[in-house]
């Protein structure tokens, strides 16, 4: 798929994020928008998956370790055909299958998540399972840069590096902001790349919003043997919606009606540029 088409899908994913969190009057748009391009790339280009058969044996797996950015994952899954895009407006509502954080009842979700630091361990377990069985499926997991403050992340990283799980890709969305503010003011996780290198990872740092760089990073990961890969995404929290960009206030806040209209205008402009 060419970059233009990926950009169009990514913009649809962003609309889904804004629309679902607006409808829910809650949710986490900031970190969903920063990861919208990587969600799009994973589900539309990178992973061996089948929306018609979400539990297909030996499919590639994805674990959203930063589970609060479920609106981004759900928007990608819906646009990829796992369930109707219209259902995104049921996010977080009583009776909806689109829970506030991913669970096992959502088509396409490979692992429940939301309690930070835990998803990466499950992804490591899946990657180990593939190795034990001599299967060639790959496992991807997405973490927040605030999330890597959790000690369990480093327990998992140590294990993955030691076990040479080259079928595992750990993606860190380094948008620089967490709930209480900038990550390097709260409890700095930097340097991120050096830390993963020290845990025996192949590390690639890229612009999270450049599909050429995303493509080449995942290619690099596939070609790397004998060690897991960590892709550090230099991203913009709230990317695509002008007033949400680089603003920690939009970590876990939904747009009101007026803000929703403004956000959709911003995204319509991107559509116009891509047309």
């Amino acid at each position, binding site marked *: 798929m060419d970059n233009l088409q990926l950009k169009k899908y990514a913009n649809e994913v962003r609309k889904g994020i804004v629309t679902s969190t607006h409808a829910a009057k809650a949710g986490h748009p900031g970190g969903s928008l920063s990861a919208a391009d990587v969600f799009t790339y994973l589900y539309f280009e990178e992973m061996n998956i089948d929306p018609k058969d979400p539990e297909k044996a030996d499919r590639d*797996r994805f*674990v959203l370790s930063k589970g609060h950015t479920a609106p981004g994952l759900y928007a990608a899954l819906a646009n990829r055909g796992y369930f109707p895009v219209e259902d995104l407006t049921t996010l977080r509502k009583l009776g909806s299958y689109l829970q506030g954080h991913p*669970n*096992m009842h959502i088509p396409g979700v*490979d*692992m*429940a998540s*939301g*309690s930070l*630091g*835990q*998803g*990466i*361990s*499950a*992804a*490591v*377990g*899946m*990657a*180990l*399972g*593939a190795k*034990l*069985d001599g299967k060639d499926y790959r496992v991807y997991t997405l973490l927040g840069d605030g999330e890597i403050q959790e*000690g*369990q992340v480093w*327990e*998992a990283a*140590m*294990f993955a590096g030691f076990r040479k799980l080259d079928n595992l890709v750990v993606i860190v969305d380094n948008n620089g902001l967490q709930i209480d503010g900038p990550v390097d003011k709260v409890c700095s996780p930097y340097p991120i790349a050096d830390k993963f290198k020290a845990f025996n990872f192949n590390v690639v740092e890229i612009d999270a919003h450049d599909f050429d760089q995303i493509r080449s990073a995942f290619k690099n990961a596939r070609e790397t043997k004998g060690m897991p890969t960590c892709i550090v995404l230099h991203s913009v929290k709230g990317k695509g919606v002008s007033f949400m960009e680089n603003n920690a206030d939009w970590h876990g806040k939904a747009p009101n009606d007026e803000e929703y209209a403004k956000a959709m205008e911003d995204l319509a402009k991107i559509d116009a540029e891509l047309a």
Partner: protein
Amino acid sequence: MADVKKIATRESYGNALKDLAEEFPNLVVLDADLAGATKTGIFKKAYPDRHIDCGIAESNMMGIAAGLSLSGKIPFASSFAMFAAGRAFEQVRNSIGYPHLNVKIGATHAGLTVGEDGASHQCNEDIALMRTIPGMVVMCPSDDIEAKACVRAALEHVGPVYIRFGRAAVPVINDKPDYKFEIGKGQIVREGKDVTIVATGIMVDSAIQAAEKLAADGIDAEVINICTIKPLDKDIIVNSAKKTGKVVTCEEHSVIGGLGSAVCDALAEEYPVKVKKIGMQDVFGESGSASDLLKKYGLDGEGVYKQVKEFV
């Protein structure tokens, strides 16, 4: 009791894993640097490629077990109860319980009889923690035979299971031709009419000893072995309470949240009677030999005898 065969249930655990490995080819065993102590080392020696040492990182081990189960394996994750149920509680809750994965947790060194290591390692809270997780099966075997039966039952059951094993050698009490194990079924090991003693794990033996002494005093105690604390065999307890009108619970665990609480929950709803809960009375343990500790905290046969007699 010198002629009675004794074996620690952790030893039974390690042996059962090895014995069942061929029958359950998807079984893999995880440990956190305690394979010698948890006895998963017995499995490791026979099946080194199916034993995964995660290092001293129990939280990650639970997540890896979750991921392995999603790859079609049946993982048994092993550590001391303190770390499996205590440190990794939230991982067990969110990464195993909530997605209802087919992960088995083999927790050894549970309760007071950890002994000399002292209170930091004597987990008297694991039953309470594990039974609050929806869908979690919680078992606490009383001897070698029951411990092995629990491991097999856990492998045959689809869904998360927690099994509590002990460090100290305990008498074999279930070597009877009619012994049959089923998840969720209690067993009347001694029939009686004056008082019901409901016991779990190594306390079944103490309860039997107490019942024998009570009989000499003219008190006819019924002893029920509850291996599966969740789901609880409510019928066997309620029916016995209807007969005796008095219930005593015995556990090598805190009286808060464990077997005693589970039994009280059941009785309160269906047939309220007076209940005496024998166990750790909201205190931490201390260093000492297993037998000295059981004696000090009133959990040996004599201690149970005295407390039941007083209650009756």
